[in-house]
């Protein structure tokens, strides 16, 4: 009786123009520790990033124990879109260029 839940994807603001960066530049998306329920954080990482259950759990454990976890790496525009989506779910996320690691 469980039905698949179709959420309405909320995208980043349509009017925002993202400055162009070097094509090869890699950005990291980090999620920081907060007080959200762990099973909730796992669900959000699965929903937003498409992670499988085990990988999402590993990230959430790392967030809980180390205070942060790099949950995704790639181009800046996609990193910003993921960051925005995580903010919508009230997970604290930041992005950094790879060289700042």
């Amino acid at each position, binding site marked *: 009786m469980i039905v698949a839940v179709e959420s309405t994807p*909320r995208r980043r603001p349509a009017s925002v123009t993202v400055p162009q960066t070097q094509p090869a530049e890699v950005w990291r998306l980090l999620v920081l520790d907060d007080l*959200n329920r762990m099973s909730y954080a796992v669900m959000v990482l699965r929903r937003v990033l498409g992670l499988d259950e085990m990988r999402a759990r590993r990230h959430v454990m790392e967030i809980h124990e180390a205070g942060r976890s790099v949950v995704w790496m790639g181009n800046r525009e996609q990193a910003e879109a993921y960051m925005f989506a995580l903010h919508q*779910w*009230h997970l*604290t996320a930041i992005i950094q260029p790879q060289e700042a690691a």
Partner: protein
Amino acid sequence: MKQVEIRLNIGAVAPLLDVIKQAADDLRTTLAIRARFPEEDADFNETWTQELMAGQNSDVRELLGLFDSEFFTDGAIAITGENCDSLLRACAALRLRIHERWLREVPVDIVEDPDAEITAVAEVARLPFAAYTFLDQIQKIILEHLSPAGTE
């Protein structure tokens, strides 16, 4: 459609709603988590914030709507596949705000313990702590029974 109906003790929940509504009032003008903007562009940041605020307010309204006059008749709230995403986000936002406003002095091991006794918390913080735990339980029920883990 899958639906979960939760029957609540009206007398026990009513005082929690007072706390939740105060937190909801806070959230009408501020985000539950501090926005960390990827840009230094003020227009970008304003647009980003307004989008987040609109979503947050919509989600909180959805949750408060569960506790309407009908709730105070039968004590029941219904959660479906249609409203569960909003309710999950609203619970998260409200919990974060309740913590920030009333529970910052409570040790984190108590805050993060779903089985913590309310007597472990200073008397002044007990009602907010009960509201915080209540919202956590709603999230738990949704996650366990509506399984909203589909990829966006």
